[in-house]
């Protein structure tokens, strides 16, 4: 039996009839056509499907859409504001934090979560902050540098009130 869900995604309210078993990631990708969120492992290991739900990073392949009823979801498509890249997105571009780009949306969301909770992480803390995200291309080093770049940028912005 289908259920009605109301989910705010990237600031836009959506109301849909869904099968209870519809995974949140399929809801985002197939129902809303927000295909930036990817599916990598399907067993809650790789983090490619990571999105923010009410401010917390979550693996959207390990959640049913019905569980997100009433929630606010931010996907990679909603991270940039008014055409301005999020500092983490900018960091990934500046520091070559991606190659094939498939893990990147989830990785960026995880990095954004990390910096929200810990604005000045050490390299080790960055590595632990993204341990729920697998990347097969970069060997992680440029990703760590990308997050460091973003942390510096966010600190500067905070200081200048930008």
């Amino acid at each position, binding site marked *: 039996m289908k259920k009605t869900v109301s989910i705010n995604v990237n600031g836009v309210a959506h109301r849909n009839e869904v099968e209870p078993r519809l995974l949140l990631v399929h809801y985002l990708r197939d129902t809303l056509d927000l*295909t930036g969120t990817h599916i990598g492992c399907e067993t809650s290991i*790789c983090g490619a499907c990571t999105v923010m739900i009410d401010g917390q990073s979550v693996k959207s392949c390990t959640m049913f859409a019905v569980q997100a009823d009433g929630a606010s979801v931010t996907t990679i498509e909603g991270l940039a504001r008014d055409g301005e890249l999020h500092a983490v997105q900018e960091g990934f571009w500046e520091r070559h934090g991606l190659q*094939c780009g*498939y893990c990147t949306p989830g990785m960026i969301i995880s990095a954004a979560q990390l910096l929200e909770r810990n604005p000045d992480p050490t390299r080790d803390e960055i*590595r632990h902050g993204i341990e729920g995200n*697998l990347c097969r*291309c970069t*060997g992680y080093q440029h990703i760590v540098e990308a997050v460091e770049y973003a942390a510096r940028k966010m600190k500067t912005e905070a200081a200048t009130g930008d």
Partner: protein
Amino acid sequence: MSNKYVGQRVKRTEDPRLIQGLGHYVDDIKLPDTLHVAFLRSMYAHARITGIDTSEAEHAPGVIAVYTGKDVVEKIGPVPCAGALPGLRVPDYRVLARDKALFVGHPIAAVVATDRYSARDAIDLIMIDYEELPPAVDVEEAAAGGPVIYEEYGDNISYKLTAGEGDIDAALASSDQRIKQRIVHQRLAPVAMEGRGVLARYYPGEKELTLWSSTQIPHLLRTQLAIMLGIPENKLRVITPEVGGGFGSKLNVYAEEAMLGWISMQLGKPVKWIESRRENMQATIHGRGQVGYVEIGCKDDGTVTGLKYDVFADLGAYHQLLTPAIPTLTGLMLSGCYKIPAIQINVTGVFTNKMSTDAYRGAGRPEATYVVERALDLVAAELGLDPVEVRRRNFPAPEEFPFKTATGLFYDSGEYEGALRKALDMAGYDQLRKEQKQAREEGKIIGIGVSTYVEICALGPSQAMPAGGWESATVRIEPTGKVTVLTGASPHGQGQETSFAQIVADQLGVALEDVTVIHGDTSIVQYGIGTFGSRATAVGGTAVHFAVEKLKEKAGKIAAHLLKSDVSSVTFNEGRFSKQAARAAAAGEVPEPVVPAGQAPAGALPEPDTGGNHVSLQDIALAAHIARDLPEDMEPGLSATYFFEPKNFTFPFGTHIAVVEIDRDTGDLKFLRYVAVDDCGRVINPMLVEGQIHGGIVQAMGQALYEEVVYDEQGQMVTGTLMDYALPRASTTPWLELDRTETPTPVNPLGVKGVGEAGTIGATPAVVGAVVDALSPFGVRHLDMPIRPEAIWRIVNRQN
């Protein structure tokens, strides 16, 4: 030619779409009325299929069709194998199993439904009657007899091959020392983060099939699928959208690709199949899978006299595209970066009830490097010499290049000592050895591993390749002055959209933003080979270079015409041609801006500015397209295509040094240092090169320490998801200290060698060497991968 972009850390032009989630991988492409396909796969490694009942599935909600082997056997040709070896046995590999299932994951039936959930549900409704057969799992047992997979062959041997030069028996007999070692290269899963995926759309009216696939080889795939499906190649269009990693696993032609094309042709609707990770582990090719016996002979001073490698290659049940060819690459690279007068490889290719092995990052070469480097370490251990010294004593000198090996190759250029010295300096090798000695006295377990590798890249001369080794490029200047590059080397993360644009922008003196690189669409791009074997820049980039040169030649003729001058007296600089007298004045000036769209009168192109002593490329392009004032007999348009055939491979090299410490109580290992100096020839974009090396090293660490595809005795896969198959994570990966030397190759005018696989090739022996070195006080000379903590703990605590 300027050097504004080449050699610089240019940010990638691919990235803005990818960091915003706006790229399109296969599953991101949505066509109306798309049907979804799911595959029923064998749950047994070896079984006779005695009955298939699809009736319940056919009537399940949303199900449109169910297909089994009998439906397609006459319709779809076999999955192709491009490896051609003398006496090679090539089993008939159909897209769906008919009478027998030969590995866990072998597709047996395909369900087509209105959505992916219904398709998946219907799979559970298909009833298969299996009669289990004993499986051939272990490669050596399968070679020795074992349960025979193909009754018609009588045994499990696919081929035997001997290669190498020099009298190996005499060489070994005359050695002061002969050392033998059994070496296992475990099976690995490539695990591109995006699995495979196919979307196929057939237009019955036009009789045109368009197939989107996550592949590294769109053109080769098109040719092979046209043959399999029996449709004209020019009615088949293959498009590779964004590809989420390949590592060789998408350098193939898969049953599912043909099946999807065929289903779309049956139903006249778009059909999509997106591989699950479990399917990816079971039914996408694996890498490595060799069990070998190396014997190395040397003089007492450490000079190597000969190397022999007898290897059983675990091919799996069928040949995928390059399955039997991979071990031959191992044979080619067995000389490493050393002078070894006699080399012999004896390959036994063995069928087993498993998924096929094929190209995985390095593809046969990591195996060779690992064998040679491990063997050199064994020599050092036997003779009590420093492993660095043993390597030095066997290097060819720079003046010996091109250097001929006993495997029949000519190494293009090399300065092995230079890279080694730089790495030793960076690591502080002598100091490290002192510290190690001190640490041992304090009871700590520390090891240093050194690997000096050479690899074979830029695959390759067509003579040595199964389906052409060249690459193609078209470069075109559009009427507005925008530069379009079409390359056959379709990337999947390597960044060719940026690096090829760097090459072109410098050659033409235009802004990087004005160059767009298009790839991965067989209807747009002229035939090409693909991205694999660290070939894209060295072969594909060189094709681009030559296409630009060809284009400039034509542009020069038009320029001379427009400037009312002679071709020999116009010169090109920074995006424009000038009459020679004006050459000095032209230097340093900024090129004209691209003709802005919107300034031209509606419906008409602006007139080219041909006054004065200069004419810009943009104006030449405009003149070439308006074509009212061109040299006599000149074709209109401004476009050039070049197919580059390399005369040789290239041979990048380098030194990797790993330093590890072992926890005596648990066997846990941590990296204290990792230093790599790589020489991939000239570098187009250092940032991209570092990225390739980082990724390669970490994949090698995965092989050395974590990864292994494990089948149990029944041929069931034990490591079927990422909850069991361990990949390196950010938190388990060390900081990598990189530097490089640059020894350009003479093989291509760019001087580039290739870098995609270097890290994977160089790092594995360094890591294993470090662990073995750490454990040498316990009498260890070799350990097989992946080296898990338990194995280390058992050695340290003498627990067997």
